[in-house]
């Protein structure tokens, strides 16, 4: 008999193929041209627009929306890509409700911001059906090694290529894209968009991707420094924090990556009762996708309150809407034959404290989403577990820059990684052309 949502333990194929396809379809349907025109008309073309200030990549949002209004989505997309070459992905994954749309004056006026993210997607979808619009400057003869083909690395590589440098991107994974390809919920980037975006971006030329080659035994930072005129590190956070206590938890990051790479969602195993520990986007992505795969009960348990969750309000609402239960103020303390045991927590004078009261959740599958870590790199200064960088991304080692999640500062957002990669490229370019 085919497994159902009520099948005990862990099982694959709890839902049929069609239901799964429906569950993992586009979270936000793209705008039609008419919808985009109507929505674009809501933009007031603010002076020194708050949305633009709120965007980590400083996209000229009023201008691109005006260009949509004027019937030129391609020009709108160019305005976006000038600042953010991964504007297509950012349109899908940016927490706009805490960035551009949060400060939209329409939000102030009537509680309904202009849907900037969907407008950006409309424009970039139109433009990405054609080759990327940037031309390379004359070759400089310089080469730059970029480690990590995620948002930071890709943005850096594209900008460097524009300036006429030759770029080699090294990535430990078999495909480029980084978290866009491996770390984001499937319903946010459907139809192989992440790979299509990498291919489109690399269409500028001058960028080579060495997939399956990460920093490590076979490739050291010294090797790279010798081989290239400059190095950019955009390698993300390779390590995941583990739940101790022998709870048999698996990594939510791996769960998401496996799901993204699965050719057949019916082959993916998921528990009847899934518990996700954590409070960030990864926790929500893992929990929602567990539910969509057919888990009967999915609970996110977070040790602090709602406001402290790194997942945005929108993400929390999405989880609730998909049937995920979120429990605040509890931390795992062990497992029992009935499942996983949690202790209630409270904010004490000296930080988080257990109250001594407990509850148990049935748990066939426990996913830990309690943060990712950087494995420190020799010869570079680190602070708070990340590579120390100056504005512009320069590290403590001459000729080495860093950006994205592995670098200090920032906020673990795709869009911030893009900004840092882009800005580091400019800094590298200035440095190379001075020398």
């Amino acid at each position, binding site marked *: 008999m085919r497994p159902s949502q009520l099948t005990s333990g862990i099982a694959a194929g709890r839902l049929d193929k069609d239901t799964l396809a429906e569950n993992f379809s586009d979270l936000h349907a793209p705008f039609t041209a008419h919808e985009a025109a109507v929505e674009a008309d809501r933009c007031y073309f603010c*002076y020194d627009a708050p949305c633009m200030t709120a965007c980590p990549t400083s996209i000229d949002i009023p201008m691109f929306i005006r260009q949509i209004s004027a019937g030129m989505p391609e020009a709108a997309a160019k305005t976006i890509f000038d600042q953010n070459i991964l504007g297509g992905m950012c349109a899908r994954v940016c927490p706009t409700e805490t960035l551009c749309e949060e400060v939209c*004056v*329409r939000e102030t006026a009537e509680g309904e911001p202009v849907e900037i993210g969907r407008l950006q997607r409309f424009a970039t979808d139109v433009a990405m059906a054609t080759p990327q619009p940037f031309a390379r400057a004359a070759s400089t003869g310089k080469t730059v090694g970029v480690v990590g083909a995620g948002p930071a690395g890709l943005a850096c590589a594209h900008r460097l290529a524009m300036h006429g440098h030759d770029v080699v991107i090294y990535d430990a994974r078999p495909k480029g894209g980084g978290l866009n390809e491996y770390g984001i919920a499937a319903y946010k980037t459907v139809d192989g968009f992440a790979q299509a975006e990498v291919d489109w971006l690399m269409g500028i030329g001058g960028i080579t991707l060495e997939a399956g080659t990460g920093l490590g035994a076979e490739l050291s930072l010294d090797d790279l420094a010798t081989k290239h005129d400059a190095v950019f590190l955009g390698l993300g956070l390779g390590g995941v924090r583990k739940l101790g206590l022998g709870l048999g938890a698996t990594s939510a990051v791996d769960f998401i990556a496996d799901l993204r790479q699965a050719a057949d969602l019916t082959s993916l195993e998921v528990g009847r009762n899934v518990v996700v520990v954590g409070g960030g986007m990864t926790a929500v992505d893992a929990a929602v996708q567990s539910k969509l795969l057919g888990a009967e009960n999915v609970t996110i348990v977070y040790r602090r309150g709602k406001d402290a969750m790194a997942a945005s309000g929108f993400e929390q609402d999405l989880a609730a809407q998909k049937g995920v239960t979120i429990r605040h103020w509890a931390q795992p303390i062990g497992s029992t034959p009935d499942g996983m045991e949690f202790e209630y927590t409270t904010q004490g004078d000296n930080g988080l404290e257990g109250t001594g009261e407990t509850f148990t959740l049935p748990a066939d599958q426990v996913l830990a989403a309690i943060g990712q870590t950087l494995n420190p790199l020799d010869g570079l200064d680190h602070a708070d577990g990340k590579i120390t960088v100056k504005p512009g991304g320069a590290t403590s080692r001459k000729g080495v820059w860093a950006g994205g999640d592995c670098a200090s500062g920032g906020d673990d957002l795709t869009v911030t990684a893009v900004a840092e990669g882009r800005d580091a490229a400019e800094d590298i370019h200035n440095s190379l052309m001075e020398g």
Partner: protein
Amino acid sequence: MVDISANFLGIKSPNPFWLASAPPTDKEYNVRRAFEAGWGGVVWKTLGEAGPPIVNVNGPRYGAIWGADRRLLGLNNIELITDRPLEVNLREIKQVKRDYSDRAMIVSIMVPCEEKAWKTILPLVEDTGADGIELNFGCPHGMSERGMGAAVGQVPEYIEMVTKWCKETTRMPVIVKLTPNISDIRYPARAAKAGGADAVSLINTVSSITSVNLDDFSPEPSIDGKGSHGGYCGPAVKPIALNLVAEIARDAETAGLPISGIGGISTWRDAAEFLALGCGNVQVCTAAMTYGFRIVQEMEAGLKQWMDEKGHATLDDVIGRAVPNVTDWQYLNLNYVAKAKIDQDACIKCGRCFAACEDTSHQAISMVGPDGERRFEVMDDECVACNLCVNVCPVENCITMERMETGAVDPRTGQTVTEEYGNWTTHPNNPGAVAAE
């Protein structure tokens, strides 16, 4: 109890809302439905002389401009007068008027500029029992190339001549419909009056090309790659119409000449504005063509409610009330001093007022608050009260023009605000100023 029944030239209608001469009034079927919906009267679509029917284009007759949400803002047409046989129209007019005796039935007419043509058709129209006629001297396209419509309306002598022929021939009240495609509306209005017209109606449509197709470079609406100017109407033309109506209402020579107001009237408010500028009733077309006949119910209810709230018992309490307030620039009170004021609680901080003032006006708005925050404030020492900030502000009543108190000093000019009225005719900077005695 508010009474909005209208008496225009002795023609009574239960409300002042007539459908203008246009496609909605081209046949019995439509007009009956219009009356059922509540319209007070109709001006039947223009009849031509007997003979071979009018031929229209077989491609698009209308062009338009829209807001981004496709709200229709302006409509343009190249349709000609009725293309149905004269006898069919006459028969239908008679039947409808017989069945709706309480509604106004006006027949629009356009025949060649020859006495015989007019004197032939008038008895036929009179025989229908219609309440009046409207002379179409306004249609700017097609018929004007044949010496009719606007071709007559643009020559005051012709207007007077044809109006006279009509007045000599028929007992029916004669309304002369004027074209806005002239340099000074007062001349055709005076000519109509001189010819004995009982009233004028305006505006007819404005000559226009709505857009150009940038693929094949054809004007729109395009007929096989070519376009011809059409007549523009709808909300976009209302300000033009209001001004032309006011010009006639306040002209010494035509003051008191009844006016039927036309031009972009879409809501009760538009209608009330036309009434206030001296119109005895209003005619509507584009709004009905956009939304259907039912809009008259909103117009009727809205006009009644507004009149009730303001204590206006009948239309006569409203008609012409704004006319004395229309004046020439030279008589505007230059001692009236206002300053823009931004309501910080209502402000959504879009900065449009700043962009408009800083880039294109008087650099009188600052955008940084005392703590460096995004805050828009008017600098009274620079503000000339131009009103542009009010006009570009997306929030209703967020920016207002506040009159300065008498005795206050205008920080821009250093002058003390006086309650004394003073205009350009007596202003010291006016070389032609007359000394105030």
